[in-house]
């Protein structure tokens, strides 16, 4: 007899009491050479900012490795000092979030082929009874993205654009908005 899985419930409007960390946005320590910043806004179906959301990210390191025992290639401590792989940012009054990280490497797929560099993303908010899951890819990896099996499986090609972080005005800056609903709704996944 296997125990039934515990259902999800919304984080509600007061997640800031329990979840934000001072170092949450830092997947790598501040000042890490080659670090990039991914910023954006979480927007609702009316296009208004969501000021009480939490964005979490998880990714491989630049050498395509995870320091995790379930990676069949073996757990590897990253060559990037202080690499945590995990980022967490609560949104501000403008719906803005920020993740400081390094670009992940591409990943081999179990059945062959290669996944383009990406971050897995969870978004939690009041109004979301369960997390929503999306991915951040990089717009300047066009060739890798074109061969990515997850992107390629999205039926409407124009919706793939919602998963691309685009280079910003400053070096090392990428912009990635998350539209929860409505026109240009971000692609969300069932994982």
């Amino acid at each position, binding site marked *: 007899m296997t125990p039934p899985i515990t259902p999800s419930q919304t984080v509600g409007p007061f997640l800031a009491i329990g979840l934000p960390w001072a170092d949450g946005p830092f997947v790598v320590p501040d000042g890490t050479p080659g670090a990039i910043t991914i910023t954006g806004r979480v927007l609702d179906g009316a296009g208004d900012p969501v000021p009480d959301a939490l964005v979490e990210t998880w990714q*491989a390191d630049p050498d395509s490795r995870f320091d995790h025992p379930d*990676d069949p290639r073996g757990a590897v401590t990253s060559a990037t000092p202080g690499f945590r792989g995990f980022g967490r940012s609560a949104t501000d009054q403008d719906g803005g979030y920020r993740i400081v990280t390094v670009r992940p490497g591409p990943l081999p797929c*179990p059945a062959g082929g290669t996944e383009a560099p990406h971050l897995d993303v969870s978004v939690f908010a009041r109004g979301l*009874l369960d997390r929503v899951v999306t991915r951040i890819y990089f717009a300047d990896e066009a060739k890798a993205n074109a061969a990515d099996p997850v992107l390629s499986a999205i039926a409407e090609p124009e919706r793939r654009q919602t998963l691309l972080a685009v280079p910003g005005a400053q070096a090392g800056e990428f912009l990635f908005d998350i539209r929860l609903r409505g026109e240009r709704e971000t692609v969300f996944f*069932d994982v």
Partner: protein
Amino acid sequence: MTAETGLILPRYQRPEGVHPPLDYPEYRSSQLRAPTRPLVPMPQWLTEVTGPLLGPERVAAADADLTTRHAGEPIGERIIVTGRVLDSGGRPVPDTLIEIWQANSAGRYAHAVDDHPAPLDPNFDGGGRCVTDSDGRYRFITIKPGPYPWRNHPNAWRPAHIHFSVFGRAFTQRLITQMYFPGDPLFAQDPIFNSVPDRTAREQMIARFDLGLTIPDWALGFEWDIVLRGASATVFEREAHQ
């Protein structure tokens, strides 16, 4: 294209019918925020079967006792909340971070956005964290949160609850939920509790009172296990070509 990559990955159970639907109009806040497009199926590959292994480095011993962090003791009914984090195969999830937050005994959150006219408690902030032990067990000391009104529908009240955030060992297992208390008269009118379609699954969110867990003359005890999606031990995402 098929290749002999040798990448044998765990496959996590898909919890059909367990979680609430995202689009659930009875919960008013979902109407502008829940996606309306169908979710796109995603494989469970390297990024999904791994995840942050956050543990003792994120907590201090005092973080598991919400009653002793301020100058005085908080007002309210002192309780122990304990249980295990398991996967759906019944295996404990050890060394994993649990974060909680809750209202005070008057039903007021220590948060600027909460304007419920109930008193704040200077001795209670409502946040806590701990790490499960080698058997997957966690334990918090806190005070029982009060119910509170919200504006979802006329005379709407939330049943008393504690928010729980759990990581497990893989991105697929990440869970944020709420723990409720047995016999709460507010369940029937609460759309968040009732958004879970299956009755057995709803009851998974209700802690069990246990006289054996009380500390005599000091605190009442509640037990609540958290069950995450388990990984199949026998099914692999591997093409069987040799």
